[in-house]
C-alpha cells in the first residue's frame, strides 16, 4: 500500500482535458519531483493533491484514504507556495501558528511547536517581525516553518525557489534536501527547473502537455530517457541530437553522419540491440550528452567504446570549470564539454572523443527510445 496514491486521475475544464490519466504511487519518505515546462499540468496535479482543485475522475488517496472531495485542511498536508503566501498582517510567529490555531491546538502546545520549528530553521530572531520586513530567503524559511509546524503526512512544494536569486536558490536547495534527509517526510515538489529536479528528488515525474512522459529515479531519467522530450528537457546544456543513418557491415553496426569538415563519420554502436539492428539502412536520431563528447585527454577512463572524430570548432564557451566547444554533426549543432584548460580556438580542427557507451537512439517518427 503506497503512502500517496494517484490513481488514474484526470482533470478537465469543461471539454478541455488538461491532465490525462495520471498514475503515480509515492512511498512514505519519498521525494517526488514533478517537472515540466509551464502549462504541462504539474501545478494542477499538485493542487489536486492539496484539494485546491477538484479531481475530474480517478482517485487520489493518502495513507489509503481517498481524498476526493475532502477539504484541504482535513487532508493533513502542508503546502509551500511560490510567492510564500505569508499573511502580511501577521508576525512571523503568528504566521507559523495560524494553522495550529485554526485546528484548535491549545496555546501552550502551539508555542512549543513553534519554538521547535523556529529553532530548526534558525528563524527565532525574526519571530516578532512582519513578512514585509524579511528578505526573500527569510520569507522562504518562514513559509517552510509554517508547513513544518503542522507535522503533516505530505509536504507539497509549488516552485518554492523560483523567486530567489541564483545563489540563494542553490543554498535553499541544499537546505531542503538536508531537511528531507533529517525528517524523512514525504514530499511532492513542483518545479520547471530540471537541475532542482535532479538534485533533490528520489524520483522524478517528467510531464508534458498533461501526460507523464517518464517516471523514474534521477539516474534513470538522465541516462535512459524514455523519449526525445525527456532527453532534451533534462540536462543542461541539453542533449545533442544527431541525425544519422544506421549502417551495418560484418564489423558491426554504425551511425553514419558528416562532420563540420564534410567528412563521413562512422560511430560504432557498442552491443546493438536487436531492435536497433532492425533500423539498419534507415535514419534515426542519436542523442549524446555534451559530457560524453570530450577532448581525448578528458575522456572517461572507464568508457568501453570511444570514437575519435576530427571536426571544426565553431564557437567556444568557457564556463570556468569546463569549456563548451561547439561543432556540427550532420549539419546540426553539436556541443562538447572539454576540460577548462583545453587549448581550443574557433576555426581550429580538433579531435572530439565520443563516448558511445552513453549514446541513446531514438526513432525519428515516434520519438521513443529504441531499447
Amino acid at each position: 500500500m503506497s503512502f500517496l496514491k494517484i490513481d488514474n486521475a484526470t482533470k478537465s475544464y469543461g471539454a478541455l482535458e488538461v491532465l490525462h490519466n495520471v498514475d503515480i504511487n509515492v512511498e512514505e519518505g519519498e521525494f517526488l519531483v514533478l517537472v515540466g515546462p509551464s502549462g504541462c499540468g504539474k501545478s494542477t496535479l499538485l493542487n489536486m493533491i492539496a484539494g485546491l482543485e477538484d479531481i475530474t475522475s480517478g482517485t487520489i488517496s493518502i495513507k489509503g484514504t481517498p481524498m476526493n472531495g475532502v477539504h484541504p485542511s482535513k487532508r493533513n498536508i502542508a503546502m509551500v507556495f511560490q510567492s510564500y503566501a505569508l499573511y502580511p498582517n501577521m508576525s512571523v510567529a503568528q504566521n507559523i501558528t495560524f494553522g495550529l490555531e485554526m485546528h484548535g491546538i491549545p496555546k501552550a502546545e502551539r508555542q512549543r511547536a513553534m519554538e521547535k520549528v523556529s529553532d530548526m530553521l534558525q528563524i527565532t530572531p525574526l519571530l516578532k517581525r512582519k513578512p514585509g520586513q524579511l528578505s526573500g530567503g527569510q520569507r522562504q524559511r518562514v513559509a517552510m516553518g509554517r508547513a513544518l509546524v503542522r507535522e503533516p503526512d505530505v509536504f507539497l512544494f509549488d516552485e518554492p525557489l523560483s523567486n530567489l536569486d541564483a545563489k540563494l536558490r542553490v543554498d535553499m536547495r541544499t537546505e531542503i534536501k538536508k531537511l528531507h534527509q533529517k525528517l524523512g517526510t514525504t514530499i511532492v515538489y513542483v518545479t520547471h527547473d530540471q537541475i532542482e529536479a535532479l538534485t533533490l528528488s528520489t524520483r522524478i515525474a517528467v510531464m508534458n502537455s498533461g501526460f507523464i512522459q517518464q517516471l523514474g529515479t534521477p539516474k534513470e531519467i538522465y541516462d535512459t530517457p524514455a523519449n526525445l522530450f525527456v532527453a532534451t528537457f533534462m540536462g543542461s546544456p541539453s542533449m545533442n541530437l544527431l541525425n544519422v543513418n544506421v549502417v551495418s557491415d560484418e564489423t558491426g553496426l554504425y551511425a553514419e553522419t558528416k562532420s563540420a569538415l564534410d567528412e563521413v563519420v562512422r560511430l560504432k554502436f557498442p552491443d546493438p540491440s536487436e531492435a536497433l539492428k532492425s533500423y539498419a539502412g534507415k535514419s534515426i536520431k542519436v542523442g549524446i550528452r555534451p559530457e560524453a563528447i570530450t577532448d581525448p585527454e578528458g575522456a572517461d577512463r572507464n568508457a568501453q567504446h570511444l570514437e575519435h572524430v576530427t571536426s571544426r570548432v565553431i564557437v567556444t564557451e568557457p564556463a570556468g570549470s569546463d569549456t563548451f566547444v561547439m561543432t556540427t554533426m550532420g549539419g546540426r549543432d553539436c556541443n562538447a564539454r572539454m576540460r577548462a584548460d583545453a587549448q581550443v580556438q574557433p576555426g581550429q580542427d580538433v579531435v572530439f572523443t565520443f563516448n558511445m557507451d552513453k549514446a541513446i537512439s531514438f526513432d525519428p517518427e515516434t520519438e521513443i527510445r529504441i531499447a
Partner: protein
Amino acid sequence: MSAASTENAIHTGRFARALIYLVLILFALFYLLPFGIMVLNSVKPLAEITGGNMMALPQVLTFEPWAKAWSTAQIGVDPTGLKPYFWNSIKMVVPAVVISTVLGALNGYVLTKWRFRGDTILFGMMLFACFIPFQIVLIPMARILGLAGLAGSTPGLVLVHVVYGLGFTTLYFKNYYQVFPTELIRAAQIDGAGFFRIFWRILLPSSGPIIVVSVIWQFTNIWNDFLFGASFADLDSQPMTVALNNLVQSSTGVKEYNVHFAGAILAALPTLLVYIVAGRYFVRGLMAGSVKG
C-alpha cells in the same frame, strides 16, 4: 515601506519655487474664500450683515447665531434648532456607512476569491447602481419601503442608502481584492480557516486603505443627500440637510443670515472632519503599495 523620500523630487531654482508657492497659495485662498465668508458672517450680529459689507470683519464677535442654529432656531413648526436633526443624520449615516461597507467588502471578497458561474454578469448588474439617477428610483423605492413597513423611518433611510451605496462599495472592494494574492487564500484554506475566518483574519486587516475610501465616499454621499431625506423621511427622522433647507427657506419672519451661515457650517462639519481625519490615511494607503509578495 520607508517614508516617502524627496530624492526623486525635481530640483528647481529658488525663483521658480517661489512662483509655484505663490500660485498654490493664491488658489488655496480662492478655494477657502467662500468658507471664510461663511465663518465671518456666522459670528456677526445680524445688524452688521444687513447694514453693511458682507466681507468686513465682525465688529462685535458673537457666537449667538451658532447657539441659535444649534438649539433654538425655528425649523418647520418647532423652535428646536438643528440639534435633533443632526442626531437623526448620525443615526442614519453611521449604520448605513457601516452596513454598506461591510457588505461591499463581502461582495468584493466573494466576487474575486469565491467565484461562481455568472459572477461577472451579477457584478455588472450591481454596477448599474452607480449609474442610475436618484430620481428614477424614487417611486419604486417608496413602494418597497411602504410594503416593508419602513416608510418615514430612519431604518427605511438606512436601507435606501445601503442599497444605493452597495454598487460603489462593491466596485471598490472588488478592484482592491482583485490584486490580493489568491495564494494567501489558498494557504489559509490549507491552514484550516473557513470562509468568514479568512475574511476576518486575512483579508480585512489588509484592507485599511480601501475601507477608508469606502467610508469617506459613503459618509459624504449619505450625509449630503437631500432628495432621499426629503422624500422618505418623517418629521422625526428628517436628516440635517432637510432641516437646513427648512431653516433657510422659511418664508416668514426676518432672514437671519448669520444663523443660516452657522447652520450651514454645522451641516458641513462632519464631512469636513471625515476628510481631515481619514484623508491622510487615504493618501498614505494609496502610496504604500499595500501587499507585496
